[in-house]
Every structure is written in structure tokens, then in C-alpha cells.
């Protein structure tokens, strides 16, 4: 049985929005964006947003949710996406390696079909929305495999339809240029100027503790069920040597140096790390403020 930890950081777009409005921040860049709903919230409220990540599916999802201002998947397009189209040859055994381990035979077949259908979409916006929507199906299936009797049985195409349609409401324009890129933090921060850099930093052993649902979706998108995403992080400053406090702090310092141009840096911290992060930010910013809207949610805000 796959381990599905519920642990996830609360990255709240509306909380960030409150912080931005209070400080007159009009643009934000997040070099470790992950699944970018928080940036979508900021975008919806008129803030220009830029994101970067090393995982391609996060970036693709960002192209649907962040960069894309208009394109949605219409009903007919969703229908073509979620089902096998007559006359097309599908790689139905592409994810056979997962069969019986994580998914049923039928589910593996659908993963292959969707992989082909999503890759055949003709716009980055639609591709991003489809990836974002179908990821929820993967999460649903994995959860259901752990708790088969507590969740409804929903046919794969119906479930996919539901979740892909859900992504529609994130598509909105804000009259600004919003970007995402597949790059490490230095490339992302070097490529865009923004009023604030938002940092929800990877954990010390982020590469090894990456959620199964996240790496599996990267594997699905690349069509390689054996994909190992650890290699993506190994050569970054948060790679293998960031396990001890000193290395991890040096990695954070590197990020803060790269973020030097932005008037604000907003670093989200847990109660455990808050003091250390505050000291690190103080070393790079003359004015530092610690905002604690909730006991488990701390923002260390440095101003240039």
C-alpha cells in the first residue's frame, strides 16, 4: 500500500494577498511554486505573478492556471480528452508497471489514454488545465486504493470530466503579464523583476520526502513510470548536502542573495524554523518584520 501522508504546507493565496495589499506589492515571483493555486489567487486579484519550478508538470499546470488568460476546455474538448477516441492507437500499456501496485488494470489503461490525449492538445493553456485537472483523479484513485469502502466508485472518465471542468474557474485575466518557467531559483529570480519574492522553501530532505502523488504525476507526464525525480534536486543548493542546519542555511542564504533585487522578500516559516529564518533574512535585509496570522503560519518579511 502506498503511503499517502496528508502533510502539506498551507500555502494560502489569500493570506499572501493580504500581505501584498498591506504593503502595496503589485507583483510576486515564487521560484519554488509547486502546484500554483496560490499564484492563481493572486492573479485573480490583479497581482502580476511569476513562478518557477523544477518539476515540469507544475510548470505545465502553471501555463494553464497562471499564464493562460482566456483558454478553457469546452465540453466537447473535455469529452475527447477523457475517453479513448475511435481510430486512434493508444499506448495503453505505458503505465503497466504501476498495475497491481498502485492502480487497477483499467486505471492504468486510462492513464495511458489520457497521457496520449493531453499530449495531443494544441495549446499550452489547455494542456496545463488538463494536467491540473487529471492530477486530482490520480490523487483520488490513490486515496481510494487505501480506503476502498469509504469512497464512492466513480467511473474514470466521469471523474476526469468532473475534475477537468473544475479547472475552468481558475482561468482569469488580470491585465498583467504572468509567467512560469522550468528553472531553478536563480534562473527564475534572474529572469523577472517583481516587487516581492515569495519563498516557501523546500524542506531539508525535500527531494527524498517528495509526495508520491507529485512524483507520480511527473512520471505520468513524461511517460516514464520509473522516473526518479530525486535527480532533479540533487544538483541544486537544496540537494543532498542540505541535511544539516549549516548546509540548509547556506542554501537559504543563496536564495536570499538571488532575491536581492526585489524590494520585499516574504519567507514562509513553520514555528520550528521561524527564529532561524528570521536571523537569515536579517543578514540580507535591513528591515525585517515577522507576521504570525496563525500559530502554524509565520511569514518573515524582509524589506530592502
Amino acid at each position, binding site marked *: 500500500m502506498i503511503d499517502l501522508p496528508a*502533510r*502539506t504546507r*498551507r500555502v494560502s493565496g489569500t493570506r499572501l494577498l493580504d500581505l501584498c495589499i498591506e504593503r502595496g506589492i503589485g507583483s510576486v515571483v515564487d521560484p519554488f511554486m509547486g502546484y500554483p*493555486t496560490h499564484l492563481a*489567487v493572486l492573479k485573480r486579484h490583479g497581482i502580476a505573478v511569476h513562478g518557477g519550478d523544477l518539476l515540469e508538470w507544475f510548470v505545465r499546470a502553471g501555463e494553464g492556471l497562471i499564464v493562460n488568460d482566456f483558454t478553457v476546455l469546452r465540453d466537447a474538448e473535455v469529452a475527447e480528452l477523457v475517453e479513448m477516441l475511435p481510430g486512434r492507437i493508444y499506448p495503453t500499456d505505458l503505465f503497466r508497471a504501476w498495475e497491481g501496485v498502485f492502480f487497477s488494470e483499467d486505471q492504468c489503461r486510462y492513464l495511458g489514454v489520457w497521457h496520449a490525449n493531453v499530449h495531443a492538445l494544441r495549446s499550452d493553456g489547455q494542456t496545463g488545465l488538463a494536467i491540473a485537472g487529471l492530477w*486530482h483523479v490520480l490523487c*483520488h484513485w490513490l486515496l481510494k486504493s487505501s480506503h476502498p469502502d469509504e*469512497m464512492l466508485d466513480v467511473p474514470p472518465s466521469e471523474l476526469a470530466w468532473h475534475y477537468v471542468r473544475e479547472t475552468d474557474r481558475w482561468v482569469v485575466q488580470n491585465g498583467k503579464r504572468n509567467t512560469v518557467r522550468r528553472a531553478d531559483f536563480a534562473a527564475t529570480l534572474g529572469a523577472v523583476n517583481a516587487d516581492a519574492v515569495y519563498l516557501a522553501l523546500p524542506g531539508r530532505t525535500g527531494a527524498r520526502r517528495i509526495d508520491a502523488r507529485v512524483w507520480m504525476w511527473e512520471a505520468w507526464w513524461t511517460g516514464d513510470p520509473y522516473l526518479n525525480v530525486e535527480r532533479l534536486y540533487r544538483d541544486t543548493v537544496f540537494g543532498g548536502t542540505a541535511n544539516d542546519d549549516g548546509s540548509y542555511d547556506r542554501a537559504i542564504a543563496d536564495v536570499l542573495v538571488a532575491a536581492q533585487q526585489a524590494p520585499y522578500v516574504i519567507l514562509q516559516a513553520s514555528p520550528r524554523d521561524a527564529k532561524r529564518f528570521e536571523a537569515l533574512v536579517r543578514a540580507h535585509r535591513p528591515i525585517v518584520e515577522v507576521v504570525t*496570522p496563525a500559530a502554524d503560519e509565520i511569514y518573515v518579511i524582509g524589506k530592502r
Partner: protein
Amino acid sequence: MTVPVGADGALGLYSAVGDAFADRRIGFGRRRANVAARFARFRGADEHAVAVAWIAGALAEVGLVRVVAPHDASPRTRALLFADMPLHGAHLAAAVRGVPREAADAIRWHREHDDGTGVPDGLRWDGIPTGAAGVGIAHAFVTAIEDAAEPRDPLEALFALTADAGRRFSLDVERAFRAFVHEQPDVEAPCTVTLPDIEDDAAADALLVAIDDRDERTRGTSARLAARAAALAERVGLDAVRASRCARLLTLGRATEFAPSDDVDPLSRVAREQRTALAGRAGAIAAAVPRYASEASALAASAAWYEEGARDRYGALLATVVAAESLDPVEAPRRLAAAAGSQLDPEIARAYVAALGAPT
């Protein structure tokens, strides 16, 4: 249901206004609060967390006050605007002195779904605070029970929720809620919660100002009406404080998504029909909150015409100041004097005209 201490004032008013905007039966918010608080206690929360659950349950939909969708908004535009309802509610709650910040956060995130498809943030899994998840499932439960199209008993409502296990609600929360309802199926069971001290008048005023601010044309109306009513009450020997309070509370009549505009002739029949609906709604909301219930009759009477037997003096006073507020200032003395004895109480209308320095 035992009304928790402290809920009789501004919190009750916020809750009732949320119900009115959401087009629910007044009292829905209190029932949701009751279920949320009992569920929190069932899960072993301390008294502070139980109070937080009650407040968040009561105020969950008050954010609708700040959601203003144009008449011709597309379903997508409406969905985007309504996605911010919890955020607005959190801001309104956080501005009330005495409301714990955890309650504001529970309001902010009570519409989040465990699978990440909720609003406003798309939080998922344990990114959603436990308190907010509890309010969210309590909301869904009471909604299922009070569904006008298909009313359900608690166990049927629970069955409706199980379809969303693992999607809208986490399996843990759904499991706990199922155990809670099986153990305590009576939705109306008493629940006593010790709420923090709230500055009722300041909080109520802030809410009324927020309702005024929904429409540019009504911005500042409640304060102007209150000033007029207080001055007029002194002239005719009524309690100025009560008159002022009633005038402010008239704003509650606009606690609906599409309130009619006040720019028609206030002494016409069309305006009277509109005023009757507004006054009735204001009276109904006030009647639901013990602290303001004594003003309900005056609010409801404020739309009645004198010639048809309206004799509530505070209601008559409100009718006069509402008419004066809407009339052209140049025309007002003549029109009010002409309406004295027909639409308006003659003594009060003449006192108002006299105060303007016009001949009566």
C-alpha cells in the same frame, strides 16, 4: 436551541445578515454554528476552540455582504466573485473586536475541499485547518437538512455527505462527523458556548456600513438617516437614541443580492412596494436577534402609509426621514408638507418641515 451567551447581539446580526444574503431561512447560521460547536466538542476540542467553531459557523456566509455581482454577470463571473465570499467574511469577522483570529481563519477556509478544489485558496489535505473543515461539514450537513427541494432528516443528510468523502471532506472528518451524528442526531440539541465579549454596537455599525457600501448610491445612507432620525426624534418627543438605532437598522432591508434602488419617487406607490419589501426584511432580521428584536415592529411599520392606519410613531418617523433622504432637497419641504396626513404622519412630517425652516 439554547442561545449561547453573547450571541444575542452583533454576532447574531452578522449571522442573520449572512442568511439573508444567502437566501436562507433566517436562523440557518445559528443552526450551523450549533452543529459546528457540538461537533468540535465531540472531537475533544477545548472551550476556546468550541467558541471559535460557533462563531465561524454563525458568520460563515456574512462575506456575501461584500460580493457584488452585476445583474448581467455570466455564471463564470459570478463563480469567480463568489469564490471570494469566505475571504470577505474572514475580513469582516477579523474587524470585529473580540472575535478570535482562529474564527476568522475558519471562516476563510470553511469552503476548502480536501481534494484541493475548494475556494478561496484551493488548499488541500491537512493544509485545511481542522476547525475550518468542521465548519465546512457542518454547513453541508445543515444545508442538506434544510434543502427546500428535498428536506432530509439528519441520517439522510449524513448519507448525502458520504458521497463527498475523500473529495469535499477528508475521510477523517467525514468519519468523525458520521460518529457524531449517530451519537447526537438531534440537530436542535442545546449547546451552551461561552463567547468572548464583543463590542456589539461598533460591530453592528461596521456591518451596516458594509451593506451601504454595496451600492455607490447608498454609501453613507445609514449614518445620514440616523442623524436625521435623531434630530427629528428630539423635536417630536421620541427617544433620539432609539430612533437613530432604528434608522441605522433600516439598512438591513438591503441585505439581499439585488436590492432595489432608492431612486424612485419615495412617495409613489412603486416606492411603497419596494419599501414594504425592504422594511419587512429589515424587521425579520432584527426580530431574529434578541438585542434588536424590540425594533422589529418599527422597522416593519416604516413602509406603511399614514392614511392606511399606520400608527407606530417610530415607524412614522422612519418613513419621514427615508422620504426626506430620497427627495430632491429643494423639493423636499413642499413634497413632505403635501404628504403629511396621507403618506406620512402629519405631526412628524410637519415637525421635519419646520426644522428645515419652511412654512408648514
